[in-house]
């Protein structure tokens, strides 16, 4: 029976993806994309990847949706469509179907039994005192990737801020809506945001031993921040604020500092002090959660609008 469920889910997922790429207009395509993200989250659950499902739902569907809807608003109402080539669509369809078929053949030809690092992780995980293997991979075994990925996040914010009209990147980003928030949005923000913050903190706390962790928690916190901005409950923060910059740097550079400290305590870069692994890992998680939340939120808000004139 679970196979039938999986098959139905796959079909609905594909229908959603087709809806995104075949809908001509921007707004329906983005709305379809949000739904597609939800379905993808369900698919991840079925692949025994709850950590990924949480990430996909929070980032892939939730925050991406805000970014994309905002983009639709900024686009000119009548997109400049180049003269449509009659042959383009059939040709593209043939190319895509060929690619999909080839990949399907590759998937079917993957070796059995599948190679896996699960045993290595299971052997090394007890030393870290963590219960969640994915957190172990992210923060211990492949900590370098995670550290640099934090830098990618920071850098994409720098890239967004570089688009500001003010070369010095001062001022606040424009609010998400050009008008005051309507009462229901404000109500939603007031009521839901505190609960959401609790859920975010819960995911962070759970992440050491159960699915969840810094990414998921940071994304939920960012989403709640955006909800508050959309409900006019808080103003967008000023980009030049020293405190804000410290929050942005806390994650990547706190992690880096722990990495250097590992040299002293564990004899190796990005090693954790023996005996205190879990405490240090959780401290790192807290720092990167804060940075992820602030960075994601600011990336969505867009470039600062320049210095304010009183």
């Amino acid at each position, binding site marked *: 029976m679970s*196979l039938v469920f999986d098959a139905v889910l*796959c079909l609905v*997922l*594909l229908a959603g*993806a*087709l809806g*995104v*790429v075949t809908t001509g207009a*921007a707004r329906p395509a*983005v709305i379809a994309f949000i739904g*597609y993200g939800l379905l*993808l989250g369900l698919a*991840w659950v*079925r*692949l*025994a*990847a709850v*950590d*990924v499902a949480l*990430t996909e739902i929070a*980032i*892939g569907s939730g925050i991406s949706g805000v*970014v*994309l809807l905002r*983009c*639709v608003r*900024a*686009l*000119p109402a009548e997109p400049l*469509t180049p003269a449509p080539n009659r042959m383009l669509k059939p*040709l*593209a369809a043939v*190319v*895509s179907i060929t690619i999909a*078929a080839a*990949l*399907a053949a590759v*998937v*079917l030809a*993957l070796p059995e039994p*599948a*190679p*896996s690092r*699960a*045993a290595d992780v*299971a*052997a090394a995980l007890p030393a870290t005192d963590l219960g969640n293997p*994915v957190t172990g*991979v*992210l923060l211990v*075994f*492949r900590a370098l*990737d995670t550290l640099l*990925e934090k830098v*990618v996040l920071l850098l*994409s914010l720098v890239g967004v801020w570089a*688009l500001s009209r003010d070369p010095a990147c001062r001022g606040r980003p424009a609010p998400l809506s050009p008008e005051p928030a309507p009462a229901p949005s404000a109500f939603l923000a007031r009521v839901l945001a505190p609960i959401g913050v609790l859920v975010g903190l819960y995911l962070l706390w759970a992440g050491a031993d159960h699915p969840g962790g810094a*990414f998921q928690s940071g994304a939920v916190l960012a989403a709640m921040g955006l909800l508050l901005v959309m409900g006019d409950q808080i103003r967008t923060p000023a980009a030049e604020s020293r405190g804000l910059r410290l929050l942005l740097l806390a994650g990547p550079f706190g992690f880096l500092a722990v990495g250097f400290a590992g040299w002293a305590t564990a004899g190796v870069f990005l090693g954790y002090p023996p005996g205190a692994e879990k405490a240090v890992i959780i401290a790192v998680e807290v720092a990167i959660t804060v940075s992820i939340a602030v960075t*994601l939120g600011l*990336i969505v808000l867009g470039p600062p609008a320049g210095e304010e004139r009183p």
Partner: protein
Amino acid sequence: MTGALLFGLAGAALVGCGVYGLLTAPGALGRVLGFNILGGGVFLMFGVVARRGAGAGFGADPVPQALVITGIVVAFCATALAVALLVRLCAVQAEAARGGDGDKET
């Protein structure tokens, strides 16, 4: 295990959808969406690889799962940067269309 295979095929089909979107999209936003679908398909295939590698008491190989989480965040960053570029481009073009005073900035 066959369930994982189904999702593997779905991942392959999503890659096809994404390529179609990239090829036929009329504007940059459509391409960004196509890229996201394509990326989703690739991640899903990675998830299938992880699921097939279940063992040692885990429901799936945790290494690819961790990599997918990193990948999703990076893909989001890319989407957001592309959208920011597009929004700015539209604003600059609209300014230029209105009065041609768009190039007074340094």
